[in-house]
């Protein structure tokens, strides 16, 4: 167990290192001359070269990579070096702030969005997915599967745009001012306002994910329902609810948890579309702004953040599944 976790941790580290390398190179090529975009419109080439030299941007890429990983000259008093203590993701020339601070400050927004959506979509999917197995091909099963197909066929940005149109614009026009058009209020400031601002973004993600999960839950529960332990439970006189939610669902959790981990991690890494539509100032919006303005260090930082979130969460889910399997044996 400890050994397999050790091996897994090493592989995770390798994956993250490779992502860093690729993101670093891609960013270096994509935003070829950050000094140029930092300098004033009509700056002379000498001024641009001066800016580049003062920020260490005139070094060859491998030297810059070394700076990025193990630390180099401090930029405006901000250390660099991912593998120093405490780690640093460098300095955002645009925002004039350390990249790590920028990302950390946006995490509560993206996390509120991702965790709330996860709780809602899993509740709906599990309830409707398990209920659909009560009478396969019955009325509820067929209706819920039709709805799932429809939801699965709506891209997130379409749902978001339509929800904004109907949930905000049309309602406000009708004098019903329930949902704001966007923005974020911290949970600590006002839980009510926090939820009110997040309902439409949550719904945007939930509608798509229910389309994905409802059928997965149904399929996984149906798969185990012919196993002996389910027949035993039934033979002992347990009712349908008890058998389904107490025996079949726990036995069917592996594929559900795996997929939930992947979807949740992708959203937590930056829900670019949803954050953009509803003006939520999270990690995704930070990344978009950085990519559009050519803020290379922030793009690398956001890519790395998304990769770490993905790798850590999927690994954590794998470990949970392993532990459950071991305990069951």
């Amino acid at each position, binding site marked *: 167990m400890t050994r397999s976790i050790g091996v897994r941790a090493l592989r995770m580290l390798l994956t993250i290192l*490779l992502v860093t390398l690729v993101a670093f190179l891609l960013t270096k090529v*994509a935003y070829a001359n950050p000094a140029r975009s930092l300098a004033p419109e009509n700056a002379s080439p000498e001024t641009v070269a001066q800016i580049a030299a003062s920020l260490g941007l005139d070094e060859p890429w491998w030297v810059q990579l070394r700076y990025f990983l193990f630390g180099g000259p401090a930029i405006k008093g901000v250390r660099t070096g991912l593998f120093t203590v405490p780690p640093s993701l460098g300095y955002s020339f645009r925002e004039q702030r350390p990249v790590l601070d920028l990302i950390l400050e946006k995490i509560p927004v993206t996390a509120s969005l991702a965790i709330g959506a996860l709780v809602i979509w899993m509740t709906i999917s599990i309830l409707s997915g398990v209920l659909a197995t009560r009478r396969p091909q019955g009325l509820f099963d067929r209706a819920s599967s039709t709805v799932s197909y429809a939801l699965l066929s709506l891209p997130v940005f379409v749902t978001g745009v339509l929800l904004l149109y109907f949930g905000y614009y049309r309602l406000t026009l009708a004098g019903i001012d329930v949902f704001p058009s966007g923005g974020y209020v911290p949970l600590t400031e006002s839980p009510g306002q926090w939820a009110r601002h997040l309902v439409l973004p949550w719904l945007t993600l939930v509608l798509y994910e229910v389309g994905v999960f409802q059928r997965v839950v149904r399929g996984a529960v149906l798969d185990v329902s012919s196993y002996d332990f389910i027949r035993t439970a039934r033979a002992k006189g347990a009712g349908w609810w008890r058998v389904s939610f107490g025996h079949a669902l726990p036995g069917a959790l592996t594929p559900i948890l795996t997929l939930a981990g992947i979807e949740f991690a992708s959203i937590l890494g930056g829900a*670019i*579309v949803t954050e953009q539509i509803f003006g939520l100032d999270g990690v*995704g919006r930070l990344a978009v702004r950085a*990519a559009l303005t050519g803020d290379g260090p922030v793009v690398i930082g956001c890519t790395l953040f998304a990769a770490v979130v993905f*790798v850590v969460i999927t690994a954590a889910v794998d470990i949970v599944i392993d532990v459950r399997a071991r305990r069951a044996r």
Partner: protein
Amino acid sequence: MTADTISPSRPTGTALVLRHLRRDRTFVAGAVIVALLVALALLAPVIAAVVGHGPDAQFPDIAIDESGIPITGGHGFLLGADALGRDVFIRVLYGARVSLVIGVVSTTAAMLIGVAVGLVAGYWRGWADAVLSEVTNVTLAFPMLLTALSIAALNRAPGGSTYVSPPVVVVVIISLFSWTYFARVVRGVVIDVTNANYVKAAIGAGSPSSWIVLREILPNTAPSVIVYWAVQLPTNIMAEATLSYLGVGIRTPQASWGLMISEAQTSGLYVAQPMMLIAPCLALFVTVLGFNIVSTRLRAHLDPDKKG
């Protein structure tokens, strides 16, 4: 007797599957949607010629009223006009061409990459498998949209033009992020099949590896690969629309549903001319729905592991 004739999946298998599919009403409904869509996409230039509105032609005089609001219908504009006085209906038809071509090309490219990776990883195992599985991990961990934004920045030439045609970039981005699925499926099938007796026989008979992989193993991956191609296609169509919506995909004046939705939203004119927003949304929804139905039913009939 060659391996082909004792392979259980064809040719009788294909006929059997087709017969089952013809009787599957859900599948037929999905197939009709897809067929109509392909027909409309193919006929788009003909319809445009009949109506007399090109996809990029602007009619500010007749299609935009005195207060600058696009008309909602009339004058031969079935679904009204957009902010520039272009025909929304014709642009939706042309958007279908973009969606289908980019969807099909990127899914096929992803399939080719994935099948190659899956064959190598599954047959040779060892270090090749280890390296390729690490490449897969890195790909999965990479955030697609953010990387697409960087690549779009890379493609931005001075003066607002681009170095590489945007549709090509979109295809490259989407296929680079969707091959992993194929690789995993093919690798699994290859590992199963390599243990089958007829493959062991071919290895024992001294056939060269390339012959075994291409002639004995590759055909066995076909059913799974076809199913996953169909599963991936609607996802990739949505990806194209999303990239174009975010402004890093198809560029104006070319018509793409994602771009049309974004234009409607930024101009705000959909409030007065809802079809600017509703028509491309509906077109995208129906398209993805049609392909989702077809692929799910295809999977139920073809994929041995998936029933129902």
